């Protein structure tokens, strides 16, 4: 290190040169991010960890060690909620995964009025979710005069209980959720299909491949990445499902649609005599660990696919 360097360095450290060198303006640009993330992201994250070891009624707070976690694990509703959440995720995959794919593959081949197809498919996505739930709640009226039961009656199927049955409630929720979300999935697939390099089709044609083989051996392999990513996104999304069970059934009948997030909500806000914030954050941390693993997998994969 030469003397010149040392002088320069010392020189740099004075406030004036810091301002001249853009330090102040950099700070100005950092300000919104620091403030907003500091108050509404970093601080609450730290607080979540701290609170999970505390018991508080907002007036007095005490440390309780692992008590909150123990209480959460002892709650008989936890396994129920976990099972329900997984069931929701599985059903969402069964309903919302293959059909949009088939629709997208078909739509890709449409020659005329392409825009009409995508617009139709996407229309339910722009309906405000609360409106969609309240509308479907009415469709699911269990009386024979209910909308869906009337339609079933036309084809001679007896009235169904829909949301009023422990076995049908969850599939009914998922059906509505799929209606509301499938359009988005179709558009994502469509975008991925458009990105398939045309040379691959040409090559396949040179080999004498027919339509079916082109779809199976060119299209589907090319979609593997996007398929896996939508899968993980869906799992992460459904793990936090709240709106549907909260508005459709309130978790019923007989806890058949209680999800993890609904359980967290109930811990925190469901008791009229004050929330159990410690247990609520303890459970959300547990869920977070699971989701963080999923997100990591997701990031790994997107990185791999985007670089390859």
């Amino acid at each position, binding site marked *: 290190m030469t003397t010149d360097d040392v002088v320069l360095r010392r020189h740099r450290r004075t406030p004036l040169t810091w301002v001249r060198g853009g330090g102040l303006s950099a700070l100005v640009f950092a300000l*919104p991010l620091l403030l907003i993330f500091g108050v509404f992201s970093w601080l609450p994250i730290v607080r979540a960890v701290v609170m999970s070891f505390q018991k508080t009624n907002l007036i007095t707070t005490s440390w309780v060690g692992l008590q909150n976690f123990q209480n959460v694990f002892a709650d008989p509703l936890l396994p129920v909620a976990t099972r329900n959440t997984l069931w929701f995720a599985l059903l969402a995959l069964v309903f919302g995964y293959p059909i949009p794919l088939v629709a997208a593959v078909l739509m890709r*081949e449409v020659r005329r009025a392409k825009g009409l197809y995508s*617009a139709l498919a996407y*229309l339910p996505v722009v309906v405000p979710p609360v409106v969609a739930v309240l509308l479907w709640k009415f469709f699911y009226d269990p009386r024979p*005069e209910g909308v869906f039961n*009337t339609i079933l009656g036309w084809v001679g199927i007896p009235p169904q209980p829909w949301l009023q049955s422990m076995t049908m409630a969850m599939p009914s929720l998922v059906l509505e959720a799929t209606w509301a979300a499938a359009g988005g999935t179709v558009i994502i697939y469509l975008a991925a299909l458009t990105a398939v390099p045309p040379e691959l*089709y040409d090559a396949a044609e040179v080999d004498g491949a027919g339509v079916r083989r082109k779809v199976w051996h060119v299209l589907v392999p090319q979609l593997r990445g996007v398929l896996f990513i939508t899968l993980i996104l869906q799992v992460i999304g459904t793990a936090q499902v709240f709106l549907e069970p909260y508005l459709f059934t309130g978790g019923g009948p007989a806890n058949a649609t209680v999800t993890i997030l609904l359980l967290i909500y109930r811990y925190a806000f469901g008791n009229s005599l004050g929330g159990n914030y410690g247990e609520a954050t303890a459970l959300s941390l547990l869920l977070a660990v699971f989701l963080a693993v999923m*997100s990591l997998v997701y990031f790994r994969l997107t990185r791999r696919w985007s670089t390859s």
Partner: protein
Amino acid sequence: MTTTSPLGPASPPTVLDAAPSEAPATRDAVTRVRRKARSDDGDDRSAVSVSDWRRPSVKWSLGTSHWLLLVLLVVWCVGPLLLLAKFAVTPTQDILRTPMAIFPNGIAWSNLSEAWNDVQVSKYFVNTIVLAAGAWFSQILVATTGGYLLSVLRPRYARALQAAVLATLFVPAVVLLVPLYLTVLDTPVFHTSLVNSFWGVWLPAGASAFNVVLVQRFFDNLPREVFEAARVDGAGPYRLFWSIVLPMSKPILGVVSIFAVIASWKDFLWPLLVLRNPDLQPLSVRLPSIEATTDKGVLMAALAISTLIPIVLFLVFQRMFLRGAGLGGAVKG
């Protein structure tokens, strides 16, 4: 696909490919060339080629399935909305007794006026728009200034800051539900409550790591020569930001805007917790709370009105919506 709300799904659609892979100028040129080549071809290339289409079996089966698909799309996607439109002007007793009959006892236009005036859908609609506008602004502000700092200015602490922002991507929104609520109840330093104030929704919306990363990656790919040239011309960091970087970033700002607005109008749980005063609530919070006490016909009219404007917006800005949605999964296959 939301990230703006504290309670949106944990991880946003992929970040990595939303940013342009080439400098925008060259990319535009490339797409232009490609598009030209394709238009010479007649249409862009898909699995079924023009010669495939000439074969009767393909033509017949694909043609049929396209018609079938169209019918299904109309029934499945538009059907419920048409029913909603019908219910909105059907007398309550008809809705309850014969929902599928076509106006057996006439049309009840009064449902609409009752919804607009008595249920005050108009007021809640304005609230919904104000909430979306504020959330949009706070997200754009944080994302552009933050992205500019991390990508262009790059002070010494940029790396640490970036890591701290990125880390929040891995924390699902659900973890924040309770602590964020308690933070909003009693904000640090100021010790005031943001409950029953639009700020309680606007400000947390800005803390979206997804937006920051998205914008930062876009800035990373802007041509550095332009910045250097501007600096040589005497532009300071503010002018560089305002007159060079922002105008070059319109595409990414559009994307962030669409995500922001969509997320805000879909948000339910957070405004439910923060906005207890009915005068401040958006439609998403208000409609469920009046569901039990409102006449079915009027409720349906209120639902229909709440849906109408998003649908009109969608039909007008269709292209932007669909591009935004496609980007959500625009990952190289």
